[in-house]
């Protein structure tokens, strides 16, 4: 463990509590979350000297967000790679802080996807934006976002014998965590979920088929929401209100459909070894796994690619360990209730960092006892066509 570099830490967090936020704009959510995350850290608005943004605001986000917030940052990073953008930002913030380019990095996210009635999962996926080679080869086929991930699920089932029940177990564990999180229960209530209680594998596989083989309860919600993360240098972190959560390792990767390629392997297979290697940590040492759960299949693929088990053995791994906060073995999975049952306004990556931090502070509503190490793995874009993977390894003192 001596080689671990503790040069940057998450010192402040805030998750915007509502999933239905009428009258709020994404910028309102970003600014309010920023103020609360800085207060959580015991830092001031004017301490921010690094601004990281996934271009969820209007205009040229690096410029317009600095102006709207009233910052004059030394570092501006507008990496926008979908839902994993915040893991990329955490990676870059660690690099920028270690390089002495900034001391207090701010990541924010705000979305009103629910109030805007955006059909993210079931939209037509065509004819929007400027034409490109990619859009011209994809638009005519009616491939919704859900069917995109479903194509990965079918292939996983074909190659490894994974079943719908195996995928459902991920939704079951996640819902159990959501029921312990009052904000998740309110989310499901406000978004008019039916049967707001723990669910069984049978209920998941008997829920309505949306895109074979993914059922309604295999899919995340579409909510409003957002949040903020403050990452600070070692010197700043020492004087913050909350104990530091160190960023020990970071990995970034892309993957896209290729002739003859294996769709059951994600970008995580590249990003995770980099992150674990930099952190000098093994997957079996991880207490808490925050894995992007746009769909149950996303988690199944990422558990394997993160190295918790071999490719194709995800189903057995889930069966063996359960992935609940109180499971005696294996990591606790998505203890906030995940995108499946708590919060998914379109780009969930920031919430992975937030709940991992709560766990390492001992503040989760489904606390893994003695949690010391967490992984946050974000997935951005679309799993079957092109996507990014961002892996962050976090540790408490």
């Amino acid at each position, binding site marked *: 463990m001596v080689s671990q570099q503790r040069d940057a830490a998450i010192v402040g967090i805030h998750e915007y509590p509502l999933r239905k936020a009428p009258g709020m704009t994404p910028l309102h959510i970003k600014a309010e979350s920023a103020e609360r995350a800085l207060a959580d850290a015991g830092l001031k608005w004017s301490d921010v000297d690094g601004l990281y943004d996934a271009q969820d605001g209007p205009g040229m986000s690096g410029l317009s967000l600095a102006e709207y917030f009233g910052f004059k940052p030394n570092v501006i990073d507008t990496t926008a790679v979908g839902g994993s953008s915040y893991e990329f930002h955490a990676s870059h913030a660690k690099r920028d802080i270690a390089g002495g380019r900034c001391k207090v990095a701010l990541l924010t996210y705000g979305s009103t996807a629910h109030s805007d009635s955006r059909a993210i999962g079931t939209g*037509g996926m065509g004819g929007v934006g400027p034409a490109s080679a990619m*859009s*011209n080869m994809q*638009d*005519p086929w009616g491939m*919704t976002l859900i069917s995109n991930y479903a194509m990965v699920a079918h292939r996983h089932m074909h190659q490894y014998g994974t079943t719908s029940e195996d995928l459902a177990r991920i939704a079951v564990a996640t819902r159990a965590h959501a029921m312990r999180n009052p904000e998740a229960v309110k989310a499901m209530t406000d978004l008019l979920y039916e049967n707001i209680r723990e669910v069984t594998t049978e209920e998941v596989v008997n829920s309505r088929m949306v*895109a*074979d083989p993914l059922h309604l309860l295999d899919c995340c919600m579409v909510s409003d929401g957002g949040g903020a993360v403050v990452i600070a240098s070692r010197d700043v972190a020492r004087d913050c209100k909350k104990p530091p959560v160190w960023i020990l390792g970071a990995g970034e990767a892309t993957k896209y459909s*290729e*002739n003859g390629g294996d769709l059951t392997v994600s970008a995580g297979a590249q990003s995770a070894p980099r992150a674990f290697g930099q952190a000098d940590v093994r997957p079996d040492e991880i207490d808490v796994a925050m894995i992007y759960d746009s769909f149950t299949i996303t988690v199944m693929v990422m558990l394997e690619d993160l190295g918790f088990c071999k490719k194709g053995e995800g189903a057995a791994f889930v069966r063996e360990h359960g992935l609940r906060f109180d499971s005696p073995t294996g990591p606790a999975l998505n203890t906030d209730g995940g995108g499946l049952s708590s919060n998914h306004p379109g780009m969930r990556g920031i919430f992975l960092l937030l709940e991992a931090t709560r766990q390492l502070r001992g503040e989760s509503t489904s606390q893994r006892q003695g949690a010391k190490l967490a992984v946050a793995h974000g997935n951005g874009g679309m799993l079957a066509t092109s996507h990014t993977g961002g892996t962050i390894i976090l540790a408490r003192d």
Partner: protein
Amino acid sequence: MARPQPRFPEPDTQPFWDATREHKLMYQVDPATGDVIFYPRRHSPYTGSRDLEWRESKGEGTVYTHSVVRLNRHPSFAQLGPYAVAYVDLDEGFRIMTNIVGVENPVTDVKIGIRVKVRWEDQESGIALPMFEPA
């Protein structure tokens, strides 16, 4: 209402779609390396070479994976009922996104590994969409 169509000008895929007017399924190769390139573009994603050749596929292949879409809010797809989106691996070595048609029930009749052949669906614009049906 028509389903979303490829839009032009878009120089990378224009030759591919032009050829569909004659029901020809085209792909690119890099003659120097033998690399098969798809989707079409100006350069090889393997070497950066721009000396690429167009070739015609026989239009026969295997379903790599698929999903049956039960819910799509786009009006042109909503009226279809359940339909199968898929990746098909053509025998020449390229993978294409498409629809599997010509089956009684897409939920039970489309399977990974089944052999398929191209079935052209002419569009009002004059181009044709390369869909696939069981061979």
